C-alpha cells in the first residue's frame, strides 16, 4: 500500500472518531478533556498532511498548515488549563468530577 494523503486523512478520521466517541461516552471530565485533545490532534494531523502535499509553487513555498497546527497546540494548552481549573472548582462545589453534575443552568 502506498502511503499518501489519503492514508493520513484516514488515520486522522479514525483518531477523530475515537476522540468523539470517547467524548460522548465518558462522564469523567478529565477523560473528556483528553478525548478533546485526541480530536484536536487529529485535526493537526490533517493540517500538516495537507500542507505537506500542497506546499505551493517552487520559490513560493508556504507553511500555513504547519503554523496553524502550532496555533491549535497553543490553544489546546490554554483550553486544558481553563478546563482543569473549572474541573477543580466543580469538585470543590459538588465533590464530583462527573460532567452531568454541572447542571446548575439547566431548565
Amino acid at each position, binding site marked *: 500500500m502506498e502511503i499518501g494523503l489519503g492514508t493520513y486523512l484516514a488515520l486522522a478520521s479514525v483518531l477523530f472518531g475515537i476522540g468523539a466517541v470517547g467524548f*460522548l461516552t465518558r*462522564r469523567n471530565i478529565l477523560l*473528556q478533556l483528553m478525548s478533546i485533545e485526541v480530536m484536536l490532534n487529529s485535526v493537526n494531523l490533517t493540517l500538516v498532511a495537507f500542507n505537506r502535499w500542497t506546499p505551493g509553487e517552487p520559490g513560493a513555498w508556504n507553511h500555513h498548515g504547519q503554523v496553524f497546527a502550532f496555533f491549535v497546540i497553543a490553544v489546546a494548552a490554554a483550553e486544558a488549563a481553563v478546563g482543569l481549573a473549572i474541573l477543580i472548582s466543580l469538585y470543590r462545589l459538588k465533590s464530583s468530577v462527573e*460532567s452531568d453534575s*454541572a*447542571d446548575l443552568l439547566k*431548565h
Partner: protein
Amino acid sequence: MGFDIQQTLLWIVLLPLLGALINGIAGRHASKAAVNVVAVGSVFVAFLLSVVGFVHLAQAEGGNASIVFDFYEWFSIEVQRVGAPSVEVPVRVRFVMDHLSGIMTVMVTGIASLIHVYSIGYMAEDEGYARFMTYLNLFTASMLVLVLASNVPLMFVGWEGVGLCSYLLIGFWFKNADYAAAGRKAFVVNRIGDFGVLIGMFLLVAVVADERTPDAFEFAQINAVATRIGLTQVQLGGATLGVTVATAASLFLFLGVCGKSAQFPLFVWLPDAMAGPTPVSALIHAATMVTAGVYLLCRLSPVFVESPYAMAFVATVGAFTALLAASIALVQNQMKKILAYSTVSQLGFMVAACGMGAFAGGFFHVFTHAFFKACLFLGAGSVMHAIHSHSDADIRYLGGLRKKLPKTHITFAIATAAIAGFPLTSGFFSKDEILLGALTWATGFPYAPFMGWVVFGALVLAATMTAFYMFRLYFRAFWGEYKGGYADDDPHHHKVEHPHESPDAMTVPLYVLAAGALLVGLLGLPHAWHLPNLWSEWLAPGHEAFLAVLHEQGHGEEAVAAATAAAREVPSAMASLQFQGQMVHGADWIAWVAMGAGSLAFLIGAGLAYVWYVQQDGSAPAGLQRSMPGLHRILMDKWRFDELYGFLIVTPMRWLAYFAANLDRFFVDGLLTRASSAGAKALGFLLTRAQNGVVFAYAGLMVAGLAGLAWWFTYPHPALEGEAGTGEVSWVAGRGLGYEYRWDFDSDGEWDTEWSADPAASHVYVDEDQIYGLVAIVEAPRSMFGAEELVVTAGETVEVPTVNLAADWVRTTITTDGDADEGLFGRTPTAPTLRYDGGRLVVNINSANIVDRDGGDDGRLALRAGETVTFGGGRITVAVLVRGTVEVKNPFGNRSRESRDLTLRVNPGAEGGEPQAQVIR
C-alpha cells in the same frame, strides 16, 4: 444705515412674540412693573410701527400699494398633476401689508394695546398675571401672522395660533371645570372649521399650481387666476361633479369661516368662551380673532365672487346667524352672555355683507364693531370689577350704575348707541352699508334677487332686535335703582353696597374706544350723501372707474358691463360686486331706503326698550314671558343647539369612545397581550427542554451539526442568477472553493462551454431555436395588478384569464367604425387564447375578424417576439423566454446542475420593423 420700511413688518410680528417669550420664561419671577413694560411696550411699539407702515401705504401712489417683506422660504411641496409634470410650490414666510391687511394690522395692534393697558387694572389681583400677559402677547403675535401672511399656509399658522391662544385664555381659570370645558369646546369646534380651511387650500393649490404660476399658495397669485378657478370643474376619480373648484373651495373655506367667526352651525363655542377673563372676551372673542373669518372672506374675495352659489350660501348663513343670535340675546340676563350673542349676530351681519359682494361694507363693520364691542365688553368688565364678580353680572340685580360708575356709564352709553345704529355713530354707517348691499343684490343682481329681499328683511329685523336688547341691557344695568349686584339668596356672593369706579388703567381705554365708536364711522359716509367715502376709495377703488364709464355711456346693461370691466382693471385689495347700486339704477332711492330702514330699526328697538324698561318698569315683557312660556324657555335655552349637538354628535362619540376603550381594555390589553405572552412563554418552555443539563446531549447535537456541515460541503451549490442586459444575458453562479463550471445556455442538453473556474458567463440569444418559449405580457385595462405574464411553450394553448380584456374586445368591435358586427354583437365574450406555433404566438380573440399583416382573414393573428397587439384598451406584448443551465463540480468530483428561466422583452428585429399587426374589426 437707512431705515428700511419692509423691516417694520418683521418687527410688528416679532415684538409681541418676543414679549411673550420673555414674560413666559421670566415673568413669574419678575416684578409686575417689569411684566407690564414688556407686555404693553412690545404691543404698543408694534402699534406705532403699524401706523408707520400704514402712513407709508397711504402716501404711495396707485390703487393698492403694498409693503412686502420676504423673510425666507419655509419649505416647498411637489404638486402632482394628471398628464403634466409635477410643480414645485414654495411655501414662503413672507409678510404683506396692503390696503386690507394694513387696516387690520393697525386695528389689531391698536385695540390690543388698549386692552393690555386695561388688563393691568383688571387682572391686578390675579395670581396668574404674568401668564395672562404672556398669552395675550402670544395671541397678538399669532393674529398679526394671520393678518400679514402673504400665503395660505402661513396664514393658517396664525389661524391655528390664535385658536390655541383662545383655548388657553378661555380656560385661563382652568381650576374651574366648566371654564376648562368651555376652552375645550372652543378648540374642538374650531378644529372642524380648520379642516375646511385645509381642504379649501389644497383645492385651490391643485388648480393654481402650474408652470406659469408656481407660487400657488400666495393670496395674490390665487386671486390673480380666480377666473380660471371659477372655470375649472371638480373632478373625482375621473368623473366631473358639475361643481366648479371656486364653489367647492369657497364652501370648504367658509366652513373655516363658520368655525372662527362663529357662524351657524358652528357658533356654539363663542357664548361659552365668555368663561375667559373679560379683556379676553373683548380682544379675542369680539374685536379681533373672531373677525379672522371675515378677513379670510375679504382676502380671497375674488375666488368667492367666482361662485354665485357659494356667495348666496354665505349671505344666507350670515343673515340667518344674525337673526338667530339676536333672538337669543333678547331674553338673556347675563351681561357677557348678551354681548356674546350680540357678537355672533354682528358677525352674521359681516358675513352676510361679504356674501352679498359688499366686502368693503362687511369689513367696515369689522372695523367699527371692533371699537364699540371692545368698549362694551370692557365696560361690562368694569361693572364686574365694581361688584367684585369674576364670572358675569346679572342685569336683573344691577341698575342705577349711571350714578355709581359715571365714567363707565358714559362710554357704555356711547358704545350701545353705536351698536344699535344711532344715527351718525359708527355702527349706523357700517350697518347702512350692509343694508345697502342687500338692497343692491335684490335690485341689481342677475342671480336669485328674491334672496336679496329675504336677506334684507332678516338683517333689518336683526338690527331692530339688536337695538332692543342692547338698550334693554343698558337701561336695566345703568338706569333705575341700584339693587346690590346679586340676588338676595345668592349663596356665593354678598351684595356690594358701594360699587366703586374702576382705576384709570381701565377707564382710559374705555374713553379711547368710545371715541372710536363715535367717530370712525365718518371714514365711510353714506353714498346717498355724495360725500367722499374714504373707506370705499381705500379698499375698493374700482368704483371710481366704474362711475366714470357709467357717466359716459348712460345706464344701460351694456354700460354696466363695460363699467364693471373697467372697475376690475383697477388694482384693489379685494373684489367687489357692489359698485353702488343706486348709481346703476341712476337714482339714490335705494340708498335712502337702506338708511331709512336702518334708522327705523333703531327707533323701534330702542324706543320699545325705553318704553318697557324706563317708563313701565318691565311689566310688559314679564307679561309677554308669562303668556308665551314655551317660546321664552326655548330662547333662554339658546334654541337648544347645545342639546341637539349633544344628542347628534357628542353622545354617539361618547359611545364610540366607550366602545373603543373597552375594546382596548378587553381585546388588546386582555386577549392579545395575554395570548402573545402565553405564546412566548410556551415557546420558551419548549426551547428550554434542550437545556437538560446532560453534557452528553449537548455534545451529541454538536457532533450531529458538524456532520451536517461536512455533508453540505461535499456537494457544490450552483445558486444560478440571470440578468437581461442590452443584447445579452449575464448569468452568474455561486462561488465556492475549487468550483468549476460549464454552461448550457439554451438548455438543449448539449454543453456549450468547457469546464472553467469563472462563475460568470454571458450569452447573446440570437437564433429562434435558442428560445425556450414565448411570454405574452397582458396589460388589461383597469387591472389592479398591472401587467400579467403568461408563459406559452411549444404546442401549448393558454387562455388569457383576464375577463376585462374579453369584454373590452367585444365593445371595440362594435364601436370602432360605427358599423356594428352583427355576428359578434350580443355574444358572450370569451377569453382570448394564445398558442405557440413555430416561433410565433397565435392570438385568437373571441373568433373575431382579424386581418393580419399578410392580408389573411383566418381570424387569427400570429405575433413574433417583440410585437404588440392592441385592442379595446388591452394590450398583448410578446416577449421571449430563455432558460439557462449550469453544471458545477467541486474538488471531490461531485456535480450539481441548476436551470433558471428569464423573460426578455425584445425589439421586433430587422424583419418586421414596427409591428404592423392591427385588429381592425
